[in-house]
């Protein structure tokens, strides 16, 4: 499972405060803790007005790179910001994100197509100019368009993390059926592609959110989810990821599961 650590995001009030005060230690601590908890990428989102965003991301990225060699998921709703901010990364990371919306793809894919950026990956949301499509068929149509663009620019499916867009369960009419249909169809069409999700969106506005998040994770992984934007320092979440991978037959002799336990990443704290 690819884990995109979500804890450095300006939309979290304590992080916003740290950004405003340029509290480097706070940012570094969150980067370090996520790295220790086996994150694959450290997500970095400023959540400040666009005119300050590039400069803010530069400072944040530098803080993160001081404490970990993990690749960074450069997170901004603006493709123009991503085009500037990715340059601050010492090693190839993840563009978070593009979608079928506007010309985002045409700004990011050409950068990824360059020889020197072959290590860069991208998250692609299945929304377009009309918003988030309601039904699975429409999201898959957006997916088809994105993959046509990827082919055009020579971006291999293994560099793309498709985000089927997780919406809150409490107002959904069909539970996560739409998500599951999208995930399993995408997985069937492209065995090498990554499928990601912002897991905690699912439980918005519900009590004991953790239970909903964990249940969603298992069902989505079963359908083909292999990447997630989540908090790796949440031991229940991480433990369930290892357990589910073993149950899905993706963990030879359960050695990853046992290894995570031995490293003290999962199970009761010793």
């Amino acid at each position, binding site marked *: 499972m690819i884990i995109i650590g979500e804890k450095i995001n300006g939309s979290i009030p304590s992080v916003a405060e740290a950004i405003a005060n340029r509290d480097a230690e706070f940012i570094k601590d969150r980067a370090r803790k996520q790295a220790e908890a086996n994150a694959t990428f450290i997500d970095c989102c400023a959540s400040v007005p666009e005119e300050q965003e590039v400069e803010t991301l530069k400072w944040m990225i530098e803080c993160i790179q001081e404490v970990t060699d993990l690749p960074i998921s450069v997170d901004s709703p603006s493709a123009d910001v991503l085009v500037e901010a990715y340059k601050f990364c010492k090693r190839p990371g993840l563009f978070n994100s593009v979608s079928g919306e506007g010309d985002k793809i045409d700004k990011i894919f050409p950068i990824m197509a360059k020889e020197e950026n072959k290590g860069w990956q991208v998250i692609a949301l299945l929304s377009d100019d009309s918003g988030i499509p309601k039904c699975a068929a429409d999201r898959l149509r957006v997916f088809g368009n994105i993959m046509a663009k990827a082919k055009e620019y020579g971006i291999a499916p293994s560099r793309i993390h498709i985000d089927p867009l997780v919406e809150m369960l409490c107002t959904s009419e069909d539970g996560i059926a739409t998500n599951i249909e999208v995930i399993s169809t995408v997985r069937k069409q492209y065995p090498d592609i990554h499928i990601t999700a912002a897991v905690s969106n699912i439980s918005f506005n519900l009590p004991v959110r953790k239970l909903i998040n964990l249940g969603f994770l298992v069902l989505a992984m079963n359908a083909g989810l292999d990447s997630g934007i989540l908090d790796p320092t949440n031991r229940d979440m991480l433990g369930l990821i290892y357990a589910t991978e073993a149950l899905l037959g993706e963990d030879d002799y359960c050695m990853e599961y*046992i290894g995570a336990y031995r490293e003290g990443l999962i199970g009761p704290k010793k």
Partner: protein
Amino acid sequence: MSKLEEVSVLITKGKAKLIGAAVQEALDDGCEATAVLDTMIDAMGVVGEQFKNNEIFVPEMLVAARAMKKGVEVLKPHLSGGSASVAGKVIIGTVAGDLHDIGKNLVAMMIESAGFEVIDLGVDVPADKFVEAVRENPDVKIVGLSALLTTTMPAMKNTVEVLNAADFRGSIKVMVGGAPITQEFADEIGADAYTADAASAAQKAKELAA
């Protein structure tokens, strides 16, 4: 870390993909093939001990044994007679009427890792099949019988009786094990040894064959 230490660490960590190269490097470095084999057997001994003490889980023992197997493959051509079975031959099987093989397989694996050649007769093995196997392998040193069910304990008793009546009895040792088996039961039916787990079985086999 010396080459032999590296081999030892890779065995205990169960690194099947890396062990072959490490064994080859140790040989290239001038280590005797038998010394490499002894190192691996000792490492498996440590793994067995850890398992016995509940310090590691079954899969960790399995991957160590898998690494051992890979290492032995590389080593075999360098050993005299092309054989890694320095300790002798062992015949093993689950007794008649009993289809359980997990415990038996673990024991077979650990005994093999201790340097024995293991002839595994499988599950539901009638007494005369054991006798036949010993006749076909006159150099066999140990016969191991497994039973998981209380209902197949009589079949184990019967098998030991048949073996005890055979003319070759003096040249073999009979070991028994399985969840319902006890030292008391082993004594009562006339077996030579009982062990409670796979690691102890391998240890006991070494003692009996020495």
